[in-house]
């Protein structure tokens, strides 16, 4: 396991082992974990803890890295809590190539800026989209519907005189 100085907290959630690292050392910690055999980044994502009173959260956004050692089959979830608007964290695309698209998706959906990413642009939403849809303060159904129902007016037969 990586140096204790990098780990802020550790625990097990529903059978999955996890550690928390500080956002500044996330890149260092993940590179060290890769060196220890966690060579597959299964996924990378973000969780928005806005107005979640079930627990006390250190910050609003939690960036989650799920790692797997393909030889020993151990899995480890790495968390880093970040705040700010937009929140910033170092990119790990240079350590784990699949993180490239995952980070673009997380930027697209949550607005998390990954420092040092080679091409941090929107990936799923259109390039000119405003806002980050998976943030908890982005409403469901908040998009204006771009067609009208006026056609019903002219399709209805005029009332008989």
């Amino acid at each position, binding site marked *: 396991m990586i140096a204790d100085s990098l780990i802020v907290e550790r625990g097990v*959630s*529903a*059978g*999955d082992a996890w550690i928390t690292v500080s956002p500044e050392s996330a890149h260092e910690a993940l590179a060290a974990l890769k060196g220890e055999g966690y*060579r*597959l*980044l*299964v*996924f990378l*994502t973000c*969780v*928005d*803890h806005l107005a*979640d*009173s*079930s*627990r006390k959260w250190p910050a609003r956004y939690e960036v*989650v890295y*799920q790692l797997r050692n*393909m030889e020993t*089959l151990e*899995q480890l*979830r790495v968390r880093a809590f970040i705040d700010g608007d937009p929140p910033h964290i170092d990119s790990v695309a240079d350590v*784990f*190539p*699949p993180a*490239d*698209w995952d980070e673009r*998706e997380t930027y697209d*959906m949550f607005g998390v800026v990954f420092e040092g990413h080679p*091409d*941090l*642009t*929107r*990936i*799923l*939403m*259109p*390039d000119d989209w405003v806002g980050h*849809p*998976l943030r*908890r303060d*982005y409403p*469901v159904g908040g998009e204006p519907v771009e067609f009208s129902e006026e056609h019903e007016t002219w399709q209805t037969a005029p009332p008989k005189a």
Partner: protein
Amino acid sequence: MTDTDTGTIGLGVTVTKAGEQGAFGGELLTINFGPHHPSTHGVLRLIVDLDGEQVKRLKPIIGYLHTGIEKQAEALRWQQVVVVTDRHDYLSPPINNLAYALAVEKLLGVDVPPRADALRVIMSELTRIASHLVWLGTSGIELGASTMLMYCFRERDTILDMNEEISGFRMHTSYIRPGGVMADATPRFLEMLDSFCTKMPGNIDEYEALLTMNPIFRSRTIGIGRLPAEDAKVLGATGPMLRGSGVAWDLRKKMPYSGYENYDFEVATSDMCDCYGRYLVRIKEMREAVRILRQALDRLPDGPVNVDDRKVLPPPREELETSMEAVIHHFKLFTEGYSVPAGDAYAAVESGRGENGCYVVSDGTHKPRRVKFRAASFVNLQPLERMALNHMVADMVAIIGTADTVLGDVDR
């Protein structure tokens, strides 16, 4: 200075710089491959830089099928999310259901009865075959073997009939749900499954007779789209993409779920690392899936198909007439739904395309805080540039085809 001079159009899309020379004395040419090209299996757009007919750069543009499934899931109750999981990888709904169900069950701390596990395995394997059949049929058409589609869809239709028999729905079954499965298998379903297991090996022989030694098919796939094992691992590829590169990685063997450790089957691999290798892997996987189905059918245990927990699943209809408590449980489940203890869990299953996983975060309420689908297609699309480099444009059809990405799964 125009956009073309700076090498960018819009945001982040690189195109050939004007006047960049290729190896054959001409300029590089940038073309759009898709989004409406029929061989892109959905709406995938590739910006391709060509030198003559050779691919020199390639950039996939995705998102055309983005439906905000993860956002929708946050607005639905835990049991309702099953319905949206059907729809991202639309060729393998029960396997997506299973990933979600396993993740939620991990948080709830419930274990499903053995019969439910066996039915989950049966539905997963049927779906795997159906998904590979769609892949085989459409890839056949793209590479000039148009008969394949007829043969493959014949058997796929039998599987859809079975889906209909067991769940009432042909494609988006929502059959596997947290706490068990939707309904027990009917006697007719088991008969259909039995005759399917008997006929299918012969049918797979038919497909092989059409393609495996077919000189046109072989010349269009052997040596095309090479992905060495080390590259496949580094790029995070899973499923037939990884096994086609000779790595025997299968979650059903390595990290068994739903009782896969009790079945005797082999992991299909091929050392060819090319499109033909991935074809062989999928054919072998269909044969192994039939073996698993046969074992599951022969050893199908008796018993309930759902957990006996009134806080998660509604009571049986008969109980409602005699028990006030059952009525209360029924009312609570259908108005508020169940609450899942706060925490997060990740569960992964092997779909026809690779590792399909589901990461769920609960804040202790009756709706999920976050549902993230780890889509195999999304990750498997990234090695595309590596595979297509220096190949002809026409070979890209074979390469995209054998990567077998479902764009609904890529874009979610």
